[in-house]
């Protein structure tokens, strides 16, 4: 662990013109790990679409930041904590939340929302149940304690996640644009200020561990998993908010992966300056932490700031009031290098920053398309009521309130729409604006056709925001794949990222931050590739939000499809036939553009609208009648079409008096009339009645039964 490969050592030796000592070798190897250097993924990520007139910070900063007007910005980002969570799920998930929140508040934005998309093996496997229970408890304990509401998530199950569970965490913060803090060191003689937890040995080498496959040996890596202290984080948050408000720092960055090393090096690199630090000044939890461990420790809840000497008194007074420990450990120097000393002034390490640039060939470069078998399930002969009942009870569909009721979703008093049904909504305090947040990952589709899978993920998410009245303003991604040294995995990664980026560009929604997690793989193979996106939408007037719920009886229901209608794998095919094969729909880009350009005229005619997602039309309609005591009737539809999962298709509820106008505006998109909104206790499909109450019971109670 933590040793440079022979080839890397050769490069380092050439660049330094001498052999590195052990501290230097440790710094090189951690900065060149996949986790920190993105050595494999960089060539693909450098091409993604990131343009936006709102952009204040993009990829490469601690988080992406967008101007939302009225003097405010939002910062958001998603990260994975997969490897630690697979080994030590409680701490892995908790520190995942802690880490992503720090990326947000280090920019001077108060974290006001988090979300947590998760993937596990099926719940009939005791190990997967254990992982889920502990991950949820970790998210719950940390998020609730720091007072950041958890607004949504997306939990799905597949055998490929049985050992390598995926724990992705998204966080969003709001700040004043004149208080934004960046991670760019500057000003020779400015001080390097360390604050937060004292450094211990926890998480030393964590970044290597996150860059390797999981094996039986991995369990021995438990000491590489960091320990969470949400109380410390809460104090650091409040201190940082006051620091931002009073403009007390030149730059700031949290100590995340590779701790003191990456935070100091990255701030220096961005500012094209150097940093010198006296390691004897680093606050330690125990006396016997070596210099190597100090530089590589991933002790949580630590921050590094660049401070003008004249502001030191003020900033330390703030830290004292919030009961946060601090120490001045170094200064900014002219020479672009990282220079480390011990207490006697003796040199511990000298590394020119230029030599740290990783520009040698990445671990994997070969790409290879792999043809998958695509024998689809035949849904034409199934019994509709029985299929609906099975879907309602399935963990791929049923309500996850057992999970999200363990998360405080309303602390902060900004939550307008909590988790549970479609997009979540957060208001922007002191303005009329609100933000919508969604998470989506289509692993079955990305596995089958990576480019199309990535493209669909962005389009479906964006349409969900549009239908709610929001304009999508940005995307953060979390890219979870297997070992990229295998050509078909690299192909999955590269093609799906391209698909995501092309869709983002088509819709002008920039990808402003993200994270890559590779090597999610074990003896049994790689995980299904999860391209998870968090999308954020903005609405200028909170009163204009439209929720995806039926409004009144008698409304006519229309289906409008913007994709090519091929049969994709669906929850129905998975639950009823254990079949995850199929083709991946292609979005009809002309139809999509036409719909978006006419949306301003179409949407005001619509009483409610919803994207079709997991479970197809049947499930989308069911979710539309959860809130308002209404139901629906579909007089005649093929069973396959009821459960079909489209690339981009939506349901519109139209008041009969507006139907003509709606049809004339959407004529070229050919919406299909499918049924009617009704009142009463029964859902009626093809003449067969189902009690709504019975379906709601199956939908809401099934998931919790896994844990009785």
């Amino acid at each position, binding site marked *: 662990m933590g040793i440079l490969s022979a080839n890397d050592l050769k490069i380092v030796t050439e660049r330094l013109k001498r052999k590195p000592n052990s501290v230097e070798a440790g710094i090189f190897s951690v900065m060149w790990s996949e986790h920190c250097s993105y050595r494999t993924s960089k060539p693909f990520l450098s091409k993604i679409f990131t343009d936006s007139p709102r952009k204040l910070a993009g990829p490469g900063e601690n988080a992406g930041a967008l101007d939302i007007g009225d003097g405010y910005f939002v910062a958001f980002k998603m990260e994975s904590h997969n490897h630690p969570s697979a080994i030590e799920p409680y701490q892995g998930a908790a520190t995942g939340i802690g880490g992503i929140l720090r990326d947000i508040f280090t920019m001077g934005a108060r974290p006001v929302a988090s979300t947590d998309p998760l993937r596990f093996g099926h719940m009939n496997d005791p190990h997967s149940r254990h992982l889920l229970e502990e991950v949820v*408890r970790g998210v*719950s*304990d940390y998020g*609730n*304690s*720091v*007072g950041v509401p958890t607004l949504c998530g997306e939990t799905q199950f597949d055998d490929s996640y049985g050992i390598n569970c995926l724990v992705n965490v998204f966080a969003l913060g709001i700040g004043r644009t004149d208080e934004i803090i960046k991670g760019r060191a500057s000003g020779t003689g400015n001080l390097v200020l360390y604050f937060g937890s004292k450094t211990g040995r926890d998480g030393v080498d964590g970044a290597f561990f996150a860059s390797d496959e999981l094996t039986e040996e991995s369990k021995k890596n438990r000491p590489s998993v960091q320990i969470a*202290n*949400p*109380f*410390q984080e*809460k*104090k650091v948050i409040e201190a940082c908010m006051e620091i931002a408000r009073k403009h007390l720092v030149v730059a700031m960055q949290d100590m995340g992966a590779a701790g003191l090393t990456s935070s100091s090096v990255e701030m220096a690199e961005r500012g094209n300056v150097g940093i010198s630090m006296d390691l004897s000044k680093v606050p330690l939890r125990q006396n016997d932490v070596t210099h190597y461990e100090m530089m590589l420790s991933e002790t949580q809840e630590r921050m590094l700031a660049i401070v003008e000497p004249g502001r030191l008194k003020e900033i330390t007074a703030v830290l004292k009031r*919030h*009961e946060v420990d601090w120490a001045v450990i170094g200064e900014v120097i002219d020479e672009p290098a990282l220079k480390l000393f011990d207490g006697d002034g003796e040199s511990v390490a000298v590394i020119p920053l230029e030599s740290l640039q990783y520009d040698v060939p990445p671990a994997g470069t070969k790409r290879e398309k792999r043809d998958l078998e695509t024998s689809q399930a035949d849904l034409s002969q199934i019994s509709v009521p029985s299929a609906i009942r099975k879907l309602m009870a399935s963990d791929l569909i049923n309500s996850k*309130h057992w999970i*999200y*009721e*363990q*998360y*405080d*979703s*309303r*602390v*902060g*008093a900004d*939550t*307008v729409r909590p988790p549970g049904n479609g997009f979540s909504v957060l*208001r922007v*305090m002191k303005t009329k604006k609100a933000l919508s947040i969604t998470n989506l990952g289509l692993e079955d589709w990305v596995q089958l056709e990576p480019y199309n899978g990535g493209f669909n993920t962005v389009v479906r998410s964006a349409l969900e925001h549009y239908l709610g009245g929001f304009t999508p303003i940005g995307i953060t991604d979390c890219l979870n794949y297997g070992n990229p040294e295998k050509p078909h995995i690299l192909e999955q990664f590269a093609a799906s990222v391209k698909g995501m980026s092309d869709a983002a560009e088509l819709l002008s929604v920039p990808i402003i931050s993200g994270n890559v997690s590779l090597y999610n793989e074990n003896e049994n193979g790689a995980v299904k590739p999860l391209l998870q996106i968090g999308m954020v939408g903005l609405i200028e007037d*909170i009163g204009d939000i439209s929720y995806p719920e039926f409004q009144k009886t008698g409304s006519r229901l229309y289906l409008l499809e913007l994709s090519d209608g091929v049969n994709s794998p669906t929850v129905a095919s998975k639950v009823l036939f254990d079949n995850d094969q199929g083709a991946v729909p292609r979005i009809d880009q002309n139809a999509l553009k036409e719909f978006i350009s006419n949306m301003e005229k179409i949407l005001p005619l619509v009483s409610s609208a919803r994207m079709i997602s997991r479970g197809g039309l049947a499930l989308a309609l069911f979710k539309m009648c959860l809130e308002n005591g209404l139901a629906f009737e579909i007089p005649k539809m093929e069973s396959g079409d009821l459960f079909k999962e489209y690339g981009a298709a939506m349901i519109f509820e139209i008041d009969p008096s507006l139907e003509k106008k709606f049809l004339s505006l959407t004529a070229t998109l050919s919406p299909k009339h499918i049924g009617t909104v009704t009142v009463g206790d029964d859902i009626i499909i093809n003449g067969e009645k189902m009690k709504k109450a019975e379906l709601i019971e199956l939908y809401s109670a099934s998931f919790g039964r896994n844990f009785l």
Partner: protein
Amino acid sequence: MKIGIGVFPGSNCDRDAMYAFKCHGAKGIDYIHYGVETLSEYDMIILPGGFSFGDYLRTGAIAVHSELFSALPSFIAAGGLVLGVCNGFQMLVESGLLPGFLLRNREHRFISKQIHLRVEDTDTPFTYKYSKGDVLRMPIAHTTGNYQPAGTSEKDIRVIFRYCDEDGNVSDEANPNGSHDNIAAISDPKGRVLGMMPHFERVCDPILGESGIPLIKGILEGGGNGNS
């Protein structure tokens, strides 16, 4: 009405309470550091929700050893009002200023959801704007909210709110956390120290829900009989 919101390291509903009161016109309202020596300038102290000092030991166990808590008994004796919400209620019980105990929820898990409350006692300076039997919708968010009077004579407990269903029926199904007799809020015998688990401060404007507004308005208008 001069109101102080007690802030402990780890408090996380202090800003929400400030916002809710300011929305309804509160003027003299400040944050108070837990190390405050005297509370004599205030008419009411709010103890907000959160995880004071991390609550790693037991909810409220460290907060009650603060200077602020040392000053509370004389503040109450002089006629001051105290309103503890969630972690604040836990502190009031831990300190003995309110009777009984708060245990971990029946299911031993954190619960965040909307519940319904039935108003049981309107003869306090906090609840006089409600009518007895009113049903309120408010969120709860806690792991330790299972109220048990253990050892306290039931006639010494003034029950202010009970968990109920949307029609006002107090039943076991409507009890989210296992509290004795569905108790969600209690006060001292004089009705001047109130402890409640539900977060009234999160339902004080039209966008989020309005069932907490009568409580805030009642306090700010300074009416109600606290000495019954």
